[in-house]
C-alpha cells in the first residue's frame, strides 16, 4: 500500500506544474534547469517522510514487543 500512496503524492506534485505563459521562458524556466531544483526539493521532502515513516514503524514494533 506504500507504493500507490507515494505515486499519488508524485501525481499531486506533477499536477501543480501547470503550463507557464511564454514570457516565463525569459526568466524562471528559461534555461530548463529550474525544474531540477523542484525535483530535488520534492525528493528531500519525500525522503524525510520516508525516514519518519520507518522510524515510526520501528517504534511501533518496539511498543508491541513490550506489551
Amino acid at each position, binding site marked *: 500500500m506504500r507504493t500507490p*500512496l507515494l505515486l499519488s*503524492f508524485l501525481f*499531486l*506534485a506533477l499536477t*501543480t*506544474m*501547470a503550463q*507557464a*505563459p*511564454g*514570457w*516565463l521562458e*525569459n*526568466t*524562471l524556466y528559461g534555461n530548463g534547469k*529550474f525544474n531540477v*531544483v*523542484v525535483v530535488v*526539493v*520534492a525528493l528531500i*521532502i*519525500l525522503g*524525510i*517522510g520516508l525516514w*519518519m*515513516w520507518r*522510524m*515510526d*514503524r520501528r*517504534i*511501533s514494533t*518496539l*511498543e508491541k514487543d*513490550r506489551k
Partner: protein
Amino acid sequence: MELRHWWWKFLAIALLLFASITALRTPLTPALVHVSPDRIAPGTSVIEVLGYNTDFQAGSTVVYLENADQRVCPSSTEVTDATHVQATFDVPTGLKEHLTTVGVDRLRYEGALFTEGLGQGIEGGACGPNEASSTVADAPFAFPNRSILYESIRNLHFHVPMWFTMIVLMAISMVQSIRVLGSNALEQDRTAELAAQVGLVFCGLGLVTGAFWARATWGAFWTNDVKLNGAAVTGLIYLAYFVLRGTVQDAHKRARLAAIYNIFAFVLLVMFLFVVPRLNAVDSLHPGNGGNSGFSDLDLDNRLRMIFYPAVLGWVLLGVWMLNLRVRAARIAEPLDP
C-alpha cells in the same frame, strides 16, 4: 498499521510537497525593476526601463511619465526585447512635483525620477496605460513582485512556518505543564520537556533562515530589530528551561518547578514575538510589526495564502509527528517509575 492512525502523517507530507513545489514554481507578476537615469531636467531625456517577467513589444507597449497626475508622452519608443524598453521624452519645464513616476502600460515605477525645473504644472499628454495590452499580462497564478523582496518572497512559505510550528509545539508544552500542576504526573512533565526540545529545533531553523533572508533584503544577517531580538530572547528563555531542569535532582520537585517556569516562558514568548514588536512605539523592519504591514497588503487576491496555509499546516503536522516519535521512543527507552 491502520490508515486511520496514519492519515495526518500522510497529509503532512502531501501538504509539504504541494506547498514547497508550488512555492518554487509560481512565477512573480510582471514589474518594472529599474529606471535609468534616476533624474530628469527640462529638455530631451532618454529613459531606459528594465522590466521583470514582462513581454514588451514594439508597437503596442506604451511608455509615459507622470507628475502630479499630468502625463508626458514620449517622442519615440524603442523596444529592445521583452524586458528592455527605451523612450525619448521632451521633458517640459514646469512639472509640479519632485518625483516623477515612470509607467509602462499598466505597470508603474512610482517616483522613479528626481525632477528638476519645477513650476506650476503642464498640460498633460494623452498617452497612458494600455489596459488591454498583453505585453504585461499576468500568469494565471503569480506571486506579488515587490521591490527588495523580488524572488525571495517565496521564503514566506518556508521561513514563517518554522515559527508557527515552534509556537504550536511550545503551546503543547505549556498545556502539558499546566496538567502537571494538577496531576503531578511525570509522564506529562516529560512530554512538556520533549515538546520544548522539538520546538527549539524549529526556533533555530527560524532564526537561521530569517538571518539568511535578512542578508538578502536588509543587507545584514542580524539587525537590532525588536522582532529579531525578541525571537532570540525567546530561544534563550527556553534554553534556560532546560538548564533549570538540570539543577533539580528530585523528579517530582523538578516536574512542578519546571512546569511553573514553562507556563511563564510561554507568556513571555507571546509577549516577545507578538506584543512588543507590534507596539506602535517601536520601529521594526520585519513585515507585520512596528506599524509595518505584513504581506497581506501585497496579497489582495490571496495567492500567497493559498500556498501559505497548506505550508503552515504541513510543517506543524510534521513537528507534531516528530514530537510523537520522541515521546514514544522515550517511553520505551526510559520507563518512568510508577
